[in-house]
């Protein structure tokens, strides 16, 4: 990384590189690479099969281009599909055996893994490039019958669950990136909460990209059985580099009768510099399926990083009386682009969904909300409420809203509100006249704008989210 780049991006505190010996596969994507990934992870044969099928479908697909995004052509043969610290390669060990350099890295990121310092109310799975480094609190969770481990570990220890549920919510042939991820996915988390169990602490995964020219293909699967409930949080960062890197993830959630899953993301991948050089391409498929009656899936996302963010955490409301929620804050600055939103697909009767989206665009960034609400013919008495607000900071940024509605049942009640605003000079002056500097004033206004979303985050993460936005805005004002 150039010295100039380093200086310009002081505000990105997570931009350091961990010096550690890694094994990285040669660049390029072909069957042999996929077989090697699967072999490296000691996967059961059905998974290799799953990967190869996805790969063969993917090969024939064109790159999608329907989003309001400028995506430079991606050469999938210029990416390495697997990279892991040598010390972790023999599979996840107990935390005492983890390379101290890796522990230090996660310490620096504010995610201590060691027994002594780790966060009390949160269990953490720490993923470094393509592998999980370790998972905290797993014994305690086991006592409740909850499985929380890396996806790779689950593939070995609980193959029957993986085989049963993998790809059920997001089939490998769903779209281009679904197939790519299904072919080459690296690591992520697996959560299984059995019948009637309320997970006593928050679960979280911290994703770290370290290696350069490597893609990260997260795969996460969360299952809540009848009456179970769980709150899961995801965080992510990467070093500052001049080139772009791909993070193409799939997250699948499945909620059975009366189950509830709350999934929160605080995304702070490196977003590139002022000229738009570098940064992560964050192309993510997140989908939840409210399979059971009265089940509940709630997405909250705070998207504050990445050169390009392209994701629509969605809920399929299959069970009668099920509830889907999407709360989003997307902040873009410099030349970042975001095209994000949600899909709420109402299938069951009396299903309800809520969408609250807050987009903030600064400098020359572009920020679009794209959302679909579909009411299927059988979805009697479905209800949706959507609120999409955009805030422009400065006058070179842009914001768009693309709400799509497909209503096939006349009993549906749908409300949609949208606003676009600029921070008014009078508001700024009012706050400044009370002693806040311009940055403090904008950040208070933005936090007020995002309040409805922040209050859905678990407390400690909402504090983090507020700080994160403050840090991002510091350099976008004045």
């Amino acid at each position, binding site marked *: 990384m150039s010295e100039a780049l380093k200086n310009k991006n002081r505000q990105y505190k997570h931009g350091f590189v961990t010096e550690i010996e890694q094994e990285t596969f040669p660049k390029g994507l072909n069957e042999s690479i996929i077989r090697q990934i699967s072999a490296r992870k000691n996967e059961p044969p059905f998974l290799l099969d799953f990967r190869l099928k996805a790969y063969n479908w993917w090969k024939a697909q064109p790159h999608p281009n329907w989003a309001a995004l400028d995506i430079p052509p991606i050469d999938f043969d210029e990416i390495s599909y697997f990279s892991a610290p040598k010390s972790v390669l023999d599979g996840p060990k107990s935390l005492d055996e983890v390379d101290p350099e890796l522990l230090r890295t996660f310490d620096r990121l504010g995610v201590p893994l060691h027994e002594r310092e780790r966060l009390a109310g949160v269990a953490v799975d720490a993923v470094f490039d393509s592998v999980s480094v370790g998972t905290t609190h797993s014994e305690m969770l086991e006592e409740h019958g909850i499985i929380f481990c890396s996806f790779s570990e689950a593939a070995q220890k609980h193959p029957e669950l993986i085989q049963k549920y993998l790809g059920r919510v997001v089939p490998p042939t769903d779209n281009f990136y679904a197939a790519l991820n299904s072919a080459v996915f690296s690591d992520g988390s697996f959560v299984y909460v059995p019948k009637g169990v309320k997970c006593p602490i928050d679960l979280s995964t911290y994703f770290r990209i370290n290696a350069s020219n490597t893609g990260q293909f997260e795969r996460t699967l969360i299952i809540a059985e009848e009456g179970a409930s769980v709150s899961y949080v995801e965080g992510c960062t990467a070093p500052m580099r001049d080139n772009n890197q791909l993070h193409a993830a799939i997250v699948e959630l499945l909620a059975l009768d009366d189950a509830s899953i709350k999934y929160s993301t605080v995304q702070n991948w490196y977003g590139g510099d002022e000229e738009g050089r570098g940064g992560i391409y964050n192309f993510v498929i997140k989908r939840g399926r409210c399979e059971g009656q009265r089940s509940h899936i709630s997405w909250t996302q705070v998207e504050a990083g990445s050169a390009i963010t392209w994701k629509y955490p969605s809920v399929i409301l299959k069970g009668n009386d099920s509830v889907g929620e999407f709360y989003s804050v997307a902040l873009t600055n410099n030349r970042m682009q975001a095209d994000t939103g949600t899909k709420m697909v109402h299938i069951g009767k009396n299903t309800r969904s809520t969408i609250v989206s807050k987009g903030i665009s600064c400098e020359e960034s572009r920020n679009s909300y794209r959302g679909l609400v579909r009411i299927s013919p059988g979805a009697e008495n479905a209800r949706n409420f959507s609120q999409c607000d955009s805030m422009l900071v400065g006058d070179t940024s842009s914001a768009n809203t693309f709400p799509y509605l497909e209503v096939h049942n006349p009993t549906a009640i749908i409300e949609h509100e949208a606003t676009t605003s600029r921070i*008014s*000079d*009078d*508001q700024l*002056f*009012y*706050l*400044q*006249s*009370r*002693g*806040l*500097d*311009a940055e*403090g*004033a904008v950040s*208070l*206004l933005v*936090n*007020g*704008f*995002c*309040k*409805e979303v922040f209050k859905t985050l678990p407390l400690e993460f909402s504090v983090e989210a507020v700080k994160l936005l403050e840090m991002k805005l510091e350099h976008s004002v004045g």
Partner: protein
Amino acid sequence: MSILKIEGLCARVVDGPDILKGIDLAVEEGQIHAVMGPNGSGKSTLARVLAGHPDYEVTRGKVLYHHDGEWLDLTEMEPHERATAGVFMAFQYPVEIPGVSNLHFLQTAFNAQCRAQGIPELDAFEFRELVAEKQKLIEMDASYLDREVNLDFSGGEKKRNEILQMAILNPRLALLDETDSGLDVDSLRIVAEGVQKLQTPRNAMLLITHYQRMLRYITPDVVHVLADGRILRTGDHTLAEEVENRGYEWVRQP
């Protein structure tokens, strides 16, 4: 000792004609000055220029503010620097800040000023105590603290909220722009008495008002009558009575 010296101040909306056309005004510590004048005469403009509103530019003259033993040129300072140096303006039309609770806003402002002045900030607990004490001064109900700043406040409640901010920030120079308008009789008395209690020998106030109503509770040391961007008359509190009895036309007569 002097706290504020305005000399030949002319100001306009950026690129417009002058609204203030040569204001001279000197305020001493411990004094209360009343500024009266017809609609559109430039009273709010004067307050906003002193507080640093970005819509206005000073085309001539000086605004000197005595702070920590030296004279500062206010016009060269950012609005927040003026605030942390002890200048406070109660707005004629207070601004709404959606999504931000009144308490959080007050604490953020208070702590920003503590930081700027190099004194320790208060934690949430200590701050609540301070607020509770100041609220009594203007008999404001605690429920306003959890509401969003000025959102759906009645006109009178907004004015009270301005004075609550003043009580908490404890300014050295307070500019009150028509704090008395929009208040019913009882509120007027409570707010005026509150303001009076905030007066000390070390601070000073500029009360902008149309009426004598507020001046019945707070006796100004000096009264100025502003018309068409100029101070036409200056006198003691009897000038306010005279204006009330005879109208502004009388002031305009040579």
